[in-house]
């Protein structure tokens, strides 16, 4: 049930400056619907900065980030929205969200973009189950009026609460943590915490799931399980994935599309097989001898 490969997220001319430092310079790429798009590059290449721009934690210095959850937007609609100065349009022909204009929580709430963090950010003192229920906050709030009707135990709130627990249970089973549902998230082993963070993001029912180094610190067996989980998310839950990862075995195995960054610029963009052979990528990752560098420079590496 793979959806047609239309763009879900279009990043156009994204630039992010911190004072005089240019972290991302004129970056453009698209993440297609129903695909796993990997963002790779050496340390400090600006991958997490891209994530923070997409999820609204940073306001980009320039560029447009258009999210179209229900199909590619017609160019004239996108242009009209961009010129109108509004943050998003939710019309019958499809929603368009301009992420660079939206607040972080709004991107998650309306645009249905969920993310995980490089250094795990679970609610450590709350149980695994509670973590997954907090992720369904907006759906639960909507069912309990302005958040207060549940005080009187209204049936609509109770039914929604039950459904939220069922969703949480489903994801706990998916990540094999159902037996530890009532344990504090901070007491779980590292690998389990990584999986729980992904499950928590999925409980928000995202259209786009952004994973910042999900395989960091996992052993090979756990990495293989993670790859299977991400594929299941893509194929069964209609969630597209944007992935930052250093573990090349995971990236090459599951990605449909890879974008390579170096010093804030895109150096390659394509299918895993093409990226693997790309000389610029090899240079950025492995370094090359001086003579080769001259050759590469001659062939226009730093275009």
């Amino acid at each position, binding site marked *: 049930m793979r959806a047609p490969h239309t763009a879900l997220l279009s990043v156009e001319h994204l630039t992010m400056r911190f004072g005089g430092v240019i972290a991302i310079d004129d970056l453009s790429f698209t993440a297609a619907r129903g695909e796993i798009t990997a963002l790779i590059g050496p340390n400090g290449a600006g991958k997490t900065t891209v994530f923070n721009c997409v999820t609204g934690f940073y306001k980009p210095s320039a560029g447009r980030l258009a999210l179209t959850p229900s199909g590619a937007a017609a160019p004239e609609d996108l242009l009209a929205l961009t010129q109108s100065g509004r943050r998003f349009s939710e019309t019958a022909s499809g929603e368009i969200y301009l992420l660079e204009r939206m607040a*972080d*929580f709004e991107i998650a709430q309306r645009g249905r973009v969920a993310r995980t963090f490089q250094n795990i950010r679970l*609610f450590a003192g709350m*149980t695994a189950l509670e973590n997954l229920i*907090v992720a369904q906050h*907006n759906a*639960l709030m909507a069912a309990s009026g302005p958040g207060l009707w549940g005080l009187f135990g209204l049936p609509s*709130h109770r039914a929604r609460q039950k459904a939220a627990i069922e969703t949480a249970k489903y994801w706990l089973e998916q990540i094999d943590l159902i037996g530890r*549902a009532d344990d*504090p998230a901070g007491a779980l082993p590292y690998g389990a915490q990584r999986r729980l963070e992904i499950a928590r993001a999925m409980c928000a029912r995202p259209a786009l799931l952004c994973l910042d180094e999900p395989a960091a610190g996992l052993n090979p067996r756990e990495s293989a399980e993670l790859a299977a989980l991400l594929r299941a998310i893509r194929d069964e839950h209609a969630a597209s994935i944007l992935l930052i990862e250093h573990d090349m075995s995971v990236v090459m195995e599951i990605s449909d599309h890879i974008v390579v960054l170096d010093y804030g610029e895109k150096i390659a963009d394509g299918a895993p097989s093409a990226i693997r052979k790309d000389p610029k990528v090899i240079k950025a990752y492995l370094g090359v001898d001086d003579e080769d560098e001259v050759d590469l420079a001659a062939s226009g590496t730093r275009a």
Partner: protein
Amino acid sequence: MSKRCEPPATFAPAPEASPLRDRLRSALIGAAKAAGVALGLAFPLLAYRTETDFSNALVLQERWAAVAAIALAAFVVRLICLLIPGRTKAASSPRRRRAEFAAIVARSRRLISAAGLASLIAFPLVVLVLLGPARSLKWIDSYGIQILIYMTLGWGLNIVVGLAGLLDLGYVAFYAVGAYSYALLSTNFGWSFWASLPIAGLLAALWGVALGFPVLRLRGDYLAIVTLAFGEIIRIVLTNWTDLTNGEAGVSSIPRVSFFGLPFIAGPEGFAAHFGLAYSPIYRVIFLFYLALALALLTNFVTLRLRRMPLGRAWEALREDEIACRSLGINTVAVKLAAFALGALVGGLAGAVFAARQGFVSPSSFTFIESATILAIVVLGGAGSQLGVALAALFIIGGSELLRELDWLQHIVGEGFDPTQYRMLIIGFALIVIMNWKPRGLIANRTPSVFLAEPRLAAPALAEEGRV
């Protein structure tokens, strides 16, 4: 409760290898060391005292007996501590003892709550029967009502500090807004207590939001400083806006609370006459007690309910990790403002009850020490724990009232000794001891708001560790 609450079996007690004589010896040595430390501390503090004699000259008074008494007391107390089985380091680790205590508290929590509620409801009647109307007045008023007001304040602040994790050092501001709202509405416009109560709460909530807006981006120490300043601003405005508040002199002759319209006065229109009773001020005090109790229970009920609802869970999630909250689409601005508003609302309601109890309010009732006391109640109780806050209010407020009654100490120490002057010193010392013994408060275990299997408690080490 589940079996998972039990401490792991690996913490088996170490065998008692040393014979009794060795143990006695080590205990004596330990006690002697403690006595030495006490001696060292008591000497500079107590040994000499300057007094003016009849010719108005300073004379040095020696107080060796007091120094010796302190040292002896330290020796005896330490010896007893070391000799009681299970209290020595060899017999059981502190960690094991804490785990055991936590398990006991967890199991008996429901029981303690029920017993506490029952004794609160029965308290005024029991005191009345035991002591008679004249002598029970003090117990119901200074102990009962005051503890209940602080319990309510503790629960209100617990929403902000314990659940949402926003350290608020200016909570007394909302208490002041509530008290002055009732005081001014009743003295200027003749509003009744019942009409003023919701207004007092709403005005305080409004100020809660007003405080919330500028501090939205602050956390931890920075937030604490701003809220501290906010508390002082409110107090200074109350002091200096003399046209409205009558300044330092305060607002006096605030109408007493009435029994749903029936005033508690002597005479044919009064409450006592209406019910065919002899007039006594005790009825008003008992009524106020139940009023304060109802307010406290309402606060508790709402908080407990909210904890199991999306808003309450969002508060706790906010305390754990604000960035993760935002990444999940939670509007942290709204969630924070809701916490400030609700906490302030409770403070305002408690303030109105306070004004009705005192019949007089002045800025000196709303100094920083009040904020500190309320915060101490929350921290001592275990931030986030409703039962813990109730126990802490009982201990701190009840304890500091009890310490007013140490006149008998004068017979031991001497006529010039005023024990009430040592009240705060003793309370402070007790707080240090308790916080050393239980660093995360009396009840540090967090009860999860929802269970998949059966209820069990989060490990104390993980609940709210260092969050306050």
